[in-house]
């Protein structure tokens, strides 16, 4: 029984069958990659996991509890954090403030009316934020406006914000899309480091095979909305069906 169990999920947009009978099981403490050509339904699947979309049929269980019908913030409070394709951070706030927000969400839940205390005096929160920034080597950028960070740093910050919440499952939506080779390798190293330091399950959607084969313990290939194969990286590499899905019949 995996930490994330997707069973018989279907999602239709008008005449388009975006997801057809998807079954997926992500084992705890592994890196599970979902790959597939454009339009295979990877992002739709991810959106079904985080509460942005509700599947037409099927079930999505996280840690034995259904996530269906829950809002994104409820699902996050259950222990699923998400990193977006283009980094989603609080651009108007400083790096420090960006880090403090998930710390409050972790400690105080989805809403707490604390309008009279001062952020600066919440010792545990401040320490937690600084500690996490140190871990991702961004402590020197503490008081910078987060919108003025480089793209790589924004990604790093978003990742740190997610990790600060100590999620049990981290979902990554094409974390290296549009990145130069060097940045991609940095991201791979960062993810490896993250994985090494803690017990965390990572589910990654990716285009870049280099990233997938460097990180994944398990790979699911999606094609036209349905899982084609699920196997270890070594077996996926040589699988003719996968080559066909990616390169077409002629290959």
């Amino acid at each position, binding site marked *: 029984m995996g930490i994330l169990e997707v069973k018989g999920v279907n999602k239709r947009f008008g005449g388009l069958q975006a997801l057809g009978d998807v079954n997926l099981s992500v084992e705890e403490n592994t890196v599970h990659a979902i790959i597939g050509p454009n339009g295979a339904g990877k992002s739709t699947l991810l959106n079904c996991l985080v509460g942005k979309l509700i599947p037409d049929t099927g079930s999505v269980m996280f840690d034995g509890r259904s996530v269906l019908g829950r809002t994104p*913030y409820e699902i996050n409070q259950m222990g699923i954090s998400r990193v977006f394709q283009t980094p989603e951070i609080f651009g*108007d706030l400083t790096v420090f*403030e960006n880090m403090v927000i998930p710390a*409050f969400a972790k400690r105080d839940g989805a809403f707490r009316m604390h*309008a009279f*205390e*001062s*952020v*600066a005096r919440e010792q545990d929160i401040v320490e937690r934020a600084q500690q996490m920034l140190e871990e991702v080597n961004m402590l020197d950028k503490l008081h910078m406006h987060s919108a003025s960070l480089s793209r790589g740093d924004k990604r790093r910050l978003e990742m740190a914000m997610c990790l600060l919440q100590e999620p049990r499952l981290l979902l990554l939506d094409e974390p290296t899309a549009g990145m130069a080779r060097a940045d991609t390798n940095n991201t791979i190293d960062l993810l490896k480091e993250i994985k090494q330091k803690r017990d965390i399950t990572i589910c990654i959607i990716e285009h870049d095979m280099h990233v997938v084969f460097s990180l994944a313990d398990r790979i699911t290939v999606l094609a036209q909305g349905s899982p084609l194969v699920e196997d270890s990286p070594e077996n996926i590499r040589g699988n003719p069906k996968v080559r066909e899905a990616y390169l077409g019949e002629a290959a």
Partner: protein
Amino acid sequence: MLGLNSKDTMLLIVVAFLALAAPFLLNPFPTNSSLAQFNAGYPDLMQRFAIFGIFAIGFNILFGLTGYLSFGHAAFLGVGSYAAVWMFKLLSYNVIPAIILAVIVAGLFSVLIGYVSLRRSGIYFSILTLAFAQMSFALAYSVLSNPKFNLTNGETGLQVYGDDPQILHREGLPDVPHLFGWAMRDNFLELEVAGWEFTFNNGYYLCAVILLVVFYLAIRLFRSPFGLMLRAVKSNQQRLNYTGLNPKPYTLAAFIISGMYAGLAGGLLAAMDPLAGAERMQWTASGEVVLMTILGGAGTLIGPVLGAGFIKYFENIFSKINDNVLHQWFAFLPDGMEDFMVFIVHPFVGKGWHLTLGILFMLVVTFLPGGLVEGGQRIARLFRRRGKKTDTPDPEHHPKETPHVAE
């Protein structure tokens, strides 16, 4: 001090000084000089500075922090005024119960309007609040003033009559709004120093003290985790949602708090002059507080207070300049030129003061998007740069640090 850092403490001290010394500061010209008409240190206007300052501080908690632009905040101001006058009619002229009820009623009213309006964001939110405010105006103006059920007294406005119950009214208490016998309209001190006259009004000082209290509360809110969440709502709601935080109760709480500030301002307006009219709820009044906040600097602490003072000053001082005054000003010019200048300036003063305000507003928004506060910052920076010229910052290699919210 008071749980604030040194910078905020300084800000509070500056505001306290400005508020408490206003009768001196706003009367810089001797009474007999030709510039005396620019003096703003008379009770009625000073009360308005403080009251609309409170209104704008509250509006800024919603608009400045969350970015939700309400176009119906005057409804809460009006509701506060009505509640206060009803307290005068039923209980007594004491302002304390009146102000408390004004805040409570405005708070309840904002729960209702906020709950519905906050289901939408952006322009739709603005339109919903505008619709609610205009509905409130219509209710106050006509619907709730029929002979069978007269809650607002329609066009005439709600006021206190001799045959009202006033069950707590006692012999010896003044027959005007008062604070335990201390009449709001009285002056406790009138100073005449050389050619200057300074008036110290009971009502103004009540307003000023309340302004300081709510300004202090606003500073605390800005620096609190709650304030941070509100700024996060403005910055990126998507990220907030995926960080396990529910934006809805945060925005609703901000809406209610700012509604209560507006109710407090409305209650104080009635406490200074026991009359509540429907025109206080009209959309132009809602628009005015938006102008005040943007003009002063939305999202800053001191900006809304400055904006409120600026607009109220123009409304009261520029509107009083008539052709006679203009002729005096330009008397030094030859006759033809004098008439010509009066002809040119005439549309911008007196009844045309809105024109001047409009031009100033355009200039500020175009050249100082951060409002008057940004203007102040630029001047301060200019002086600082002159102080140490060798240490020019290099924007390429030293990325700009975020300015503190309060600046």
